């Protein structure tokens, strides 16, 4: 496969989003500023999603899944952009999540006087990075894509330039990201030094060929994991997340908590499971400990939160812990057998988590229009004021807690539990079981507020001033609600991706087999 037109066709989704970003940028330069470019942005995201669907379901897609390859077309080709099932599912998730964030932003951007052109430009750039990250086939592409996800993020967080909290949040986020990027880069350079390769398949072959675990390679792997642990806000590298979420505009916080986190996870999966698989004995236990710490600290601190966004921030830290659980099975004796399924479990959890968490953020955005402080007590009387929003939030919280009727969350947790037990990390399953109980405590505290009487409603006229929820925000809420209900009734919608992802990871193409010295053990 020679570099050429087909390459761009294969890499269509990120290219479409990048072009949309250019269009949005040019549009914002017009002398008479048009309305915020919500429609072009959504159109670009939709086109990219259609492209992803075409790659997944049409026979044509089979030929256009790899791009920017080295070497001959037969076995042994190494590609920098390669879209397997894992990639396509994550790209679809990123695009859907971004579309919901755009809907949430449609009203928030003009109301908070954020510069519309820049906002959507930055958002699209970040989405482009997330799409590329999901398809990254070499270490450099992964790193660059990861930075492309994060860099616009700082600006998005700090866009409210008259707000001191926003500035602090952006600075915290920036410093943490730069440090984590540096750590990751150092780790990657050590891996490169040990294997002499940057393509993921070649790195795996190189690590496997060396037989023993080289200390340099092991250190490189550990540092890379640490770098990504910052991105996905795993404890003890999580401290930036609550401040950043609380200081950012709410739709941006939702974006960071869901889309950006999903991108971090797909990067982590590609590195660990594809490239560093021969060193699973090194990173498996590390991930297990990170998972246990992350969920426990996240849940315990969330117990003490009084503001909705901070609670969601800490709960998303805890969910990152659940998401890490399946990856830790690599540490077990027969981890290789179940690792593919385990990655599938993480992806299923990501899909369910995205729907329910974006839903909770959508309701929080609606409430913050009336009560900007967005404390848990501001949700009092919501069941009376806005019964549908209250019912939706109660449902999302039940799903986050994993209790019926929020069955989607329960199914996602069952999948993760099953992966952990199948991979012989039963202790982690028990830690997680206890954690779900802790988590329920704070979701309940929040949920119970919805049905309490609001003392401020007795003040004459205060309830009359309730602003109407704008239509795009209602649409965002509706989409997430439909998705969460659908995943509750038909969990197979999400679960069906597991076999494809598992097959893609358990039977990797053996591109460099001709060059490897020792076969994979």
């Amino acid at each position, binding site marked *: 496969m020679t570099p050429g037109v087909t390459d761009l066709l294969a890499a269509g989704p990120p290219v479409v989003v990048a072009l949309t970003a250019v269009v949005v940028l040019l549009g914002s330069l017009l002398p008479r500023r048009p309305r915020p470019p919500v429609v072009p942005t959504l159109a670009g995201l939709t086109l990219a999603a259609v492209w992803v669907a075409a790659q997944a379901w049409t026979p044509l897609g089979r030929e256009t899944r790899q791009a920017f390859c080295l070497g001959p077309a037969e076995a042994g080709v190494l590609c920098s952009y390669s879209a397997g099932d894992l990639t396509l599912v994550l790209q679809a998730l990123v695009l859907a999540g971004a579309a919901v964030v755009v809907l949430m932003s449609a009203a928030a951007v003009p109301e908070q006087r954020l510069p519309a052109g820049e906002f959507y430009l930055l958002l699209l750039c970040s989405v482009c990075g997330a799409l590329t990250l999901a398809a990254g086939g070499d270490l450099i592409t992964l790193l660059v894509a990861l930075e492309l996800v994060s860099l616009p993020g700082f600006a998005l967080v700090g866009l409210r330039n008259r707000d001191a909290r926003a500035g602090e949040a952006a600075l915290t986020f920036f410093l943490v990201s730069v440090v984590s990027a540096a750590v990751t880069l150092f780790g990657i350079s050590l891996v490169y030094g040990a294997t002499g390769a940057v393509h993921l398949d070649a790195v795996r072959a190189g690590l496997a060929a060396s037989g023993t675990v080289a200390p340099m390679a092991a250190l490189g792997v550990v540092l890379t994991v640490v770098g990504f642990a910052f991105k996905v806000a795993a404890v003890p590298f999580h401290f930036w997340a609550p401040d950043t979420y609380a200081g950012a505009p709410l739709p941006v916080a939702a974006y960071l908590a869901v889309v950006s986190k999903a991108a971090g996870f797909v990067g982590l999966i590609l590195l660990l499971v594809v490239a560093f698989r021969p060193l699973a004995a090194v990173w498996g236990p590390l991930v297990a400990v990170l998972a246990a710490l992350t969920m426990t600290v996240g849940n315990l601190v969330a117990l003490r939160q009084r503001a909705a966004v901070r609670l969601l921030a800490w709960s998303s830290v805890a969910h990152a812990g659940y998401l890490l659980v399946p990856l830790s099975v690599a540490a077990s004796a027969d981890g290789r057998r179940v690792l593919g399924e385990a990655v599938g479990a993480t992806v299923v959890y990501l899909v369910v988590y995205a729907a329910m968490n974006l839903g909770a953020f959508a309701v929080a955005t609606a409430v913050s229009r009336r009560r900007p402080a967005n404390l848990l007590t501001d949700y009092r009387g919501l069941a009376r004021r806005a*019964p549908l929003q209250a*019912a939706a939030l109660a449902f999302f919280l*039940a799903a986050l807690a994993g*209790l*019926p*009727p929020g*069955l989607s969350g*329960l*199914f996602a947790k*069952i*999948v993760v*539990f*099953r992966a952990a*037990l*199948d991979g012989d990390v*039963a202790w982690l*399953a*028990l830690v997680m*079981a*206890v954690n*779900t*109980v802790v988590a*329920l*405590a704070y979701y*309940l505290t929040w949920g*119970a507020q919805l*049905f309490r009487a609001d003392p401020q409603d007795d003040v004459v006229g205060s309830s009359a001033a309730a602003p109407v929820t704008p239509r795009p925000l209602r649409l965002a809420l509706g989409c997430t609600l439909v998705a969460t209900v659908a995943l509750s009734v*038909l*969990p*197979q919608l999400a*679960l*069906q991706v*597991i076999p494809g992802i598992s097959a893609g990871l358990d039977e990797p193409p053996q591109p460099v087999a001709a060059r490897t010295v020792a076969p994979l053990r």
Partner: protein
Amino acid sequence: MNVLLLALLALPLAACLLLAALRGPAGERWAVTVGTITSAAVLLLSLGAVRAFDTAAPQRMQLETDLGWTSGLGLRLHLGVDGVSLPLVVLTALLTLLCLLHLRRHLPPPGRPRALVALVLLLEVGLLGTYLALDLLLFFIFFELVLIPMYAVIAGWGGAGRGSAATKFILYTLLGSAVTLVGFLVVFLQTGTLDMVELADRGGAGMSRTVQVLAFLAVATGFAVKTPMWPLHTWLPDAHSEAPTVGSVLLAGVLLKMGTYGLVRIAVPVLPEGAQLLAPWLGAFGAVGIIYGSLVCLAQTDLKRLVAYSSVGHMGFVLLGIATLTPAGLNGALFANIAHGLITGLLFFLAGGLKERYGSTDLAVLGGGLYARAPRFGGLLAFAAVASLGLPGLAGFWGEMLAMFGAYRPAAGLPRGLFLAFMALAGLGTVLTAAYLLMVLRRVAQGSAADAARGPLPDVAAHEWLAWAPLAVLVMVLGLWPRTLLGLTDPAVRTLLGVGP
């Protein structure tokens, strides 16, 4: 494929969704009526299931429905009834209907009947589903489904300490059931099936002894919290005494039974080696619970709390019966389950009635003289109390007698001496139980001329008879003709235990 059981679940669920959609004053006005009609229809359906049930072969799963739901999890919508679950299904349907009849006249503050009825109906779905499910994950989903509605009923309509009582209830029981889920998944991963009938048939084949013991420990912990077993019972007194009457009745009447039902249906037959090893512990905790429950009851000053604690003692008998792993013990446990549901349901209704008349359930406030002031009410209270203490001829007697009988000769391999000691403790417990219930009667029902001079109270009204009489009648029927129930449970229990008829 039989749609009867599916309809049993779909009907209350549909009514619950209908009520959720019926906003505005019309919804509030019609809520209780809709609920009453629905639950009456559910009771009729469950009686239809009894009619369709082949009582000649109660050990066989009947009226089965088996539909695929989620192949990725191996989860199937598999429902069925046998002699173990059928009585519990009818009990659930009956108590729900009685609760809704009670709500017609006695809506607990702060009103809002639409929400309360919708929650009670959702609770009914969860309870019925738990007793009907034949798939481990499906069972678990229904087992968890009751948590949020019961939490909301206590937190929304309960007494002064409702908030913390409700939170304690849900967190405790979730902690138990989260561990249960881990146990279920271990069973699934070891055997590759979630089908409860098939797992029971295999009787632990395919699982090593260690796996069985650990899985039993995990599964039984969750059920023990729900039952509740001493020392995991601490959520119960608060939840029962703070809940509104309908909540207490459903909690004590059918919700606790989910735990013991799970032990009989899943833990014991699916993990027999684990059960064999841990049964003495189960029996010990049960026996301690009997003594502990009755001693604590003796010290109570509040009638509702006393009835709540009495559940710990009564469920101790159930646990002891299960721990013997004998047909007699398990039959006794299942009988005591139903009897306790009827009697304690009645007692909580009566306590609610006293609260309406006196404004409190504190024994000191109640004073004496109920026989003189409201003779029929007093008589009914005396009837419920003596039924609860296990007077022969009433329902409370047979279950506890059979449980102790089972402990006299426990299954082979269990330490007989230990179980004899448990039996002696249980015997002592029956005496203490009689002591506190007679104390209640002496303090509340009997009294001096001065008590009678406080004037008459409104006696049992027609609508109260409507809700209470069915329970009293059933207590008598089961006490006089225990075979109606034992004939159903005995063959099923023998099949579950894998012993011949």
